[in-house]
């Protein structure tokens, strides 16, 4: 019996993605929101690696590499924005941040 067939990995990746989606919907702390987006990115990375193994070529690894680069850039700018918002409003509750004209 071999459990690590590809379909088990597909289940794992979709479950991870849905947990990240649940976090984005449930939490109001903006930093936790960013972390849940990281969870969803990681679920898609896992599935890209699984498909790369499944089809036997390494282009999926390149895409995971690029997605990690974009995640790093996104997190650095997003956290700088969150620090600015916290300095200005003294809160990072997403339901209070509803003004576009700060």
């Amino acid at each position, binding site marked *: 019996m071999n459990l690590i067939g*590809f379909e088990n990995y597909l289940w794992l990746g979709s479950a991870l993605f*849905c947990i990240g989606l649940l976090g984005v919907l449930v939490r109001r702390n903006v930093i936790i929101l960013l972390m849940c987006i*990281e969870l969803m990115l*990681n679920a898609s990375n*896992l599935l890209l690696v699984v498909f790369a193994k499944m089809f036997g070529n390494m282009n999926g690894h390149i895409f995971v590499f690029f997605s990690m680069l974009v995640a790093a850039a996104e997190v650095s700018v997003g956290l700088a924005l969150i620090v600015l918002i916290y300095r*200005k409003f003294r809160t990072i509750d997403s339901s209070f941040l509803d003004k576009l004209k700060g």
Partner: protein
Amino acid sequence: MDLTNIAFIAFSAITLICALMVVLARNPIYSVIFLILTMFSLTGHYVLLHAQFIAIINIIVYAGAIMVLFLFVLMLMNMNANNEPNKSFLWKVLAGLVASGMLMSILLVYIKNMGDMPIVPTTNSALGQALPADFGYIKPLGNLLFTEYVFPFEIASILFIAAMVGAVFLGSREKSTNNRIN
């Protein structure tokens, strides 16, 4: 029941439980710690999937750099479980329904198409044929990155310069407003 199966089950359980704890933990610091644990178990999955370079990059970039950045910002803001914002019960139930419904629909599609899926063990081969011996190593990845994907690679460097300029600009503006307030 060989060792890779046990490793797969253990890594999957750690991944899912820690991901749930990221969402459910009251204290944001605990959320970051559980997210780091999730990254490490995903690294285990990458090693099982013959993606050694991706596994190392996952530890260095995600668990090493990005998570430390999150932890740093959380420490800067002095947040704990007491001033953690909370959503209403109705909204939580709705969010749970949406997320579990999405998971259910994806799983239903899998189960419906299960006969068409290639049931191939991931241990040594993909779609029947054997993997190349250096699958997932740095050398073929570098060859691919600097020949076929060299243009996206250069574009990524422009993206990084833009992100760096943005972060530095936001950081310096934060300091000047702080001076004005004091």
